[in-house]
């Protein structure tokens, strides 16, 4: 049922993406803003502080917020131009319903009528097929309050186990690995530890483009004398001047970590006292890496042996260090193992839990951290609790005022939800802050699944590519139209402040969700009057959990420029305290509610875990038919599925359309020159884009950025293989081939760069 109109042009004409540029009010140099609102960027997990200029209920520009400690005024191009998403011509100002007679596929409808229709359809589907026939998809760009509410809404209002979120495409491998090794899932150190380290190891992270402000921390470390090691299939802007570049074959990171640990053990570059006092499981790991000699490591990783030896020596003999990684090692069918491999070399070095000795994954989305802690994940309850743990269930059920047996059990990951939609098990879907038609792998399958839904409602501020499949679209809110908290890259909870009111019929997402609950006549637990009220309930819900927010208040956040969780409201002996938060985890004498003083790690014995991390090749290895590895990623001027950034003119100008990066040695074999139309193909699909011929990529690898939809989408090619533990899809490697295209794609000259 949920298929978009076959002719795309009317829908593009009506709903965009069109690009916005500065109009007269924003260009006027004499127009003093009514006020400056201190808040944060709406995009990545760094959550840079920014001041928005507001005039006549429109965000007209920005002024750097020099006092905010993390970024001290620094912003990337997305942060600079983010204000152009407001007062945008594509903004959804009313609800819309599917209308087969309208060329653009939709016609406007009244908000109340839309809510009534949504409630009626949910009730109908649940009556006919059971509560579990409804699914909920949410996102990690939502505030903590909204993420919490979505988890509660699915379990309490809809009574379905089927909720998951787009952090599934982002942070889950890091989360699962950290949970196994440390019993807690958060960057272990504040970023201020980076410049204090004498060695920086960056694996699978295009820091300059995906976490640009982190660059300054890395460069400051270098200026203080640090060496920098970068592991990547591409020479990223940060890698260009690093001290040691390891050009790893996509999907082979675990082999490198095992090989480095092998050398550390062989040469005695490990911290025995630390390992004995603070960890368990080292001997098994040592036994496992015994076979990972440098020759084998070089063979598997594609990295010359001398570079592996050099990296191991530097890592092994450093006195202080900071290891960070991102999706490059996590987006794999063995993403969790890659993360565990990285943690193993950190633990073996003993360099964690101290000033200048750090480890952390680089969070992707705005609330990639907070969004994975409070229950919108299919297996999780607030406070980073486990939905399968009877004690945790009882705690949350009591708080939510329901009987424990009525609390649904674990659901499935978001990709599996689409498989359930395809199989006819899930009949109705509500989505918020998720654009799977662009962001999920093998997206022709996603389109097919969406077509099988009996009812699909989405809440969004723009008609994104997935919303085109919806029966009802409800007009939601932009980040600057609401308040709430977000947990950034360092585990620091910061406050988003409201700058402007929602336009037209649009309203805050949490109000829309509560309106649906009310229309379903299931309002109990969904009568919050403000984000602050939601936050207060969340604080209580998280109390005693690993992700304890109970000591955090909006006021404390403002006073301290953010509060790192865990932040307790009570001391270990139950007395109320004013806890400042925990900027650095695992300090030797630190207390946590799991170890209760036994040690600094979040297990009953207080010790960290070494985990054997066996190497397995990617799900799809290259062969004669598909001899290349395709890897995907981002560009600095776009963000995720581009719903916002493909509507901002200056950002579209900076990198208008995706290109296929390839090495000249590969290009030459097919007579491909820079700028030629090239067709990349995998077993799932193909796309024709222009070639970008550069020597900064491995000759056996091609790279396509994924921010674009339709026939420009890299995710037509990617594989839906998933990590068995984290369920993250393997975006970073699949088998592919390229050839010179027969001609320009059919969209060339017809669609604007940002459209598809």
């Amino acid at each position: 049922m949920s298929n978009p109109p076959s002719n795309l042009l009317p829908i593009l004409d009506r709903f965009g993406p069109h690009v916005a540029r500065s109009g007269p009010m924003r260009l006027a140099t004499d127009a003093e803003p009514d006020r400056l609102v201190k808040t944060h960027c709406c995009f990545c997990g760094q959550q840079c502080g920014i001041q928005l200029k507001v005039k006549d209920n429109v965000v007209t520009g920005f002024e750097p917020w020099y006092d905010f400690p993390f970024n001290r005024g620094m912003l990337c191009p997305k942060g600079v131009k983010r204000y152009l998403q407001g007062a945008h011509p594509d903004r959804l100002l009313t609800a819309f319903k599917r209308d087969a007679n309208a060329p653009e596929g939709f016609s406007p409808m009244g908000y109340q009528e839309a809510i009534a229709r949504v409630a009626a359809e949910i009730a109908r589907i649940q009556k006919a097929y059971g509560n579990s026939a409804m699914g909920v998809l949410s996102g990690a760009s939502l505030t903590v309050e909204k993420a919490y509410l979505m988890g509660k809404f699915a379990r309490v209002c809809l009574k379905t186990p089927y909720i998951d979120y787009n952090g599934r495409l982002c942070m889950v491998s890091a989360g699962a690995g950290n949970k196994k090794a440390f019993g807690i899932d958060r960057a272990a150190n504040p970023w201020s530890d980076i410049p204090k380290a004498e060695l920086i190891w960056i694996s699978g992270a295009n820091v300059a483009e995906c976490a640009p402000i982190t660059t300054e921390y890395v460069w400051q470390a270098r200026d203080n004398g640090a060496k920098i090691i970068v592991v990547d299939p591409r020479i990223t802007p940060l890698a260009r001047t690093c001290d040691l570049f390891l050009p790893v074959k996509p999907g082979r990171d675990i082999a490198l970590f095992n090989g480095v640990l092998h050398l550390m053990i062989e040469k005695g570059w490990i911290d025995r006292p630390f390992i004995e006092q603070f960890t368990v499981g080292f001997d098994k790991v040592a036994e496992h890496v015994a076979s990972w000699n440098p020759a084998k490591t070089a063979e598997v990783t594609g990295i010359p042996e001398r570079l592996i030896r050099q990296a191991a020596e530097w890592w092994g003999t450093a006195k202080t260090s900071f290891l960070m990684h991102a999706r490059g090692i996590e987006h794999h069918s063995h993403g969790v193992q890659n993360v565990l491999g990285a943690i193993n070399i950190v633990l073996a070095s003993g360099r964690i839990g101290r000033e200048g000795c750090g480890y952390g994954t680089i969070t992707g989305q705005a609330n990639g951290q907070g969004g994975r802690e409070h229950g919108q994940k299919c297996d999780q309850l607030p406070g980073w609790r486990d939905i399968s743990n009877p004690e945790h269930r009882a705690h949350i059920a009591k708080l939510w005022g329901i009987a424990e047996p009525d609390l649904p059990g674990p659901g499935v990951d978001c990709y599996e939800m689409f498989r359930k939609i395809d199989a006819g098990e899930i009949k109705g879907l509500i989505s918020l802050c998720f654009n799977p038609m662009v962001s999920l792998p093998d997206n022709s399958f996603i389109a097919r699944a969406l077509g099988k839904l009996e009812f699909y409602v989405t809440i969004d501020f723009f008609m994104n590519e997935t919303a085109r499949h919806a029966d009802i679209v409800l007009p939601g809110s932009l980040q600057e139209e609401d308040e709430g908290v977000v947990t950034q890259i360092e585990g620091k909870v910061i406050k988003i402040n409201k700058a402007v009111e929602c336009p037209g019929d649009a309203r805050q997402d949490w109000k829309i969700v509560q309106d649906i609950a009310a229309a379903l006549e299931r309002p109990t637990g969904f009568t919050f009057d403000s984000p602050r009220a939601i936050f207060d309930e969340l604080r209580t819900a998280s109390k005693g959990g690993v992700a304890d927010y109970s000591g955090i208040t909006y006021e404390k956040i403002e006073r301290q420029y953010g509060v790192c969780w865990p932040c307790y409201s009570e001391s270990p002996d139950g007395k109320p305290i004013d806890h400042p938060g925990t900027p650095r985890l695992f300090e030797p004498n630190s207390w946590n509610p799991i170890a209760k003083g036994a040690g600094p790690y979040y297990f009953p014995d207080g010790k960290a875990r070494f985990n054997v991390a066996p190497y397995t090749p990617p799900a799809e290895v290259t062969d004669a038919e598909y001899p290349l590895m395709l890897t995907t990623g981002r560009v600095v001027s776009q963000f995720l599925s581009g719903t916002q950034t493909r509507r901002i003119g200056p950002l579209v100008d900076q990198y208008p359309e995706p290109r296929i990066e390839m090495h000249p040695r590969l290009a030459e074999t097919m007579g491909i020159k820079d700028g030629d139309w090239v067709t990349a193909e995998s077993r799932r699909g193909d796309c024709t884009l222009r070639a970008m011929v550069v020597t900064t990529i491995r000759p056996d690898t091609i790279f396509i950025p994924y921010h674009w939809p339709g026939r420009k989408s890299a995710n037509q090619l990617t594989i839906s293989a998933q990590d068995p533990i984290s369920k993250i899809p393997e975006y970073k490697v699949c088998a592919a081939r390229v050839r010179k295209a027969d001609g320009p794609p059919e969209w060339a000259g017809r669609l604007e760069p940002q459209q598809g």
Partner: protein
Amino acid sequence: MSVPSHLNFYIDASRCIGCQACVQACTECDTHKGHSMIHLETVDRAHSTQTIPVICMHCDSPTCAEVCPADAIKRSEDGVVQSARKPRCIACNNCVLACPFGVPKMQVEFELMMKCDMCYDRSSVGLKPMCASVCPSQALFFGTREEIEALRPQAAPIDRFQFGNQTITTKVKMMGPKSVAGQRPEHIDVTAAMEEHAPPRSVSLGVLNGAR
């Protein structure tokens, strides 16, 4: 109002990551809103991700002003070389051709030369220019000499540039590596450097060609 004398602009091209935050933020400055005055040069993308941000170097004896037949380009007492004055500029392009750093831009639609004025509305009241405010790599840095010396102990600011027979001293400083003896290099010989090959520090994938 004038730019406080203790505040300086430093460029460290080795830090640049080509993100264009400076280009985008430059268009937000009230003195030239909607137009970026930054030149972000991509050196040779086929072989490197190297980029270099170029702002006006604010020369002590600005060549652009010296060659201006209409006397449209003024250097204020704090050493900032201002954009051409609209009533005087005859859009002859002399300054564009003469500037050794290639900074002035001819805005054909306004028949006016425009260039970086160090965000004079901001810097003259002690605020950082837009580009140096946002620059995520701090390749563009605005602050005191004490700050830069403390933060970048391995680099030295250079404000003398040799172009053939012309020696130029500038208000904006370029960070270069300290010489082996830890001494501050005297100047950068730009024309001589054009003949040199890429420094060996550059990372390349050549390692893949080598034997294991």
